[in-house]
């Protein structure tokens, strides 16, 4: 049986948990992954699908990703975060495939001893994920048309 001191050291090792999944995302699950008994703060961002775009009723969204690269790009963002802020664990979950309106497409969670670090890290993570991680969203509208979206943060293409 490990001593308490040993358990603390196991807990202390910073983790990055990155997951792309077709399953419904759980805020509880993701926040549990980053909670540490040594940290007082967990900050989270949850991106949910909106029901409208330019007056058109969105009935569904579909996400696809360039998978090994998307994970690598998220890992790069995690490294950048660790260079900028003192944070403990980082979890980034992105849903793929069909996502019904009001369900989460992304959950980012960061734990830290001091809350400013995790709040700023979450902000940085979502900004950079939208700019650099190869994931695509297709909106499907009520009148059976659809459109591939682009993030305004996408670093090489600007909105017309």
């Amino acid at each position, binding site marked *: 049986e490990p001593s308490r001191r040993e358990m603390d050291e196991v807990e202390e090792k910073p983790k990055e948990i990155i997951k792309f999944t077709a399953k419904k995302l759980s805020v509880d699950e993701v926040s549990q992954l980053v909670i540490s008994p040594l940290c007082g703060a967990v900050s989270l961002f949850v991106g949910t699908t909106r029901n409208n775009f330019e007056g058109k009723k969105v009935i569904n969204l579909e996400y696809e990703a360039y998978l090994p690269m998307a994970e690598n790009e998220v890992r790069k963002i995690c490294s950048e975060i660790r260079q900028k802020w003192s944070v403990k664990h980082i979890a980034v979950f992105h849903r793929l495939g069909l996502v019904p309106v009001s369900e989460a497409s992304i959950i980012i969670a960061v734990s830290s001893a001091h809350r400013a670090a995790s709040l700023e890290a979450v902000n940085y993570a979502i900004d950079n994920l939208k700019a650099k991680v190869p994931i695509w969203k297709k909106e499907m509208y009520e009148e059976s048309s659809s459109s*591939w979206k682009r993030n305004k943060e996408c670093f090489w293409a600007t909105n017309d």
Partner: protein
Amino acid sequence: MVPHCQVEVLYFAKSAEITGVHSETIFVPQEIKALQLWKEIENRHRGLADIRDQVIFAVRQEYVELGDQLLLLQPGDEIAIIPPISGG
């Protein structure tokens, strides 16, 4: 003659809709500028001309713009066509 090799081209989102395929193997010069490589691909799928201004490559999973950068390709390299992203 410039040495050639086979590379794997991956299409995503709108580029996959235009080409009708998600991946294909093409035979290209091992030393080629990024824009020249794009033209080789566009020759195979004329519809891609519509999105030329909006896409970027990922060569071996690193972003490369469609410009003058010289690519040194190895057999089996993965080249992805990346339309504007919209994750999050």
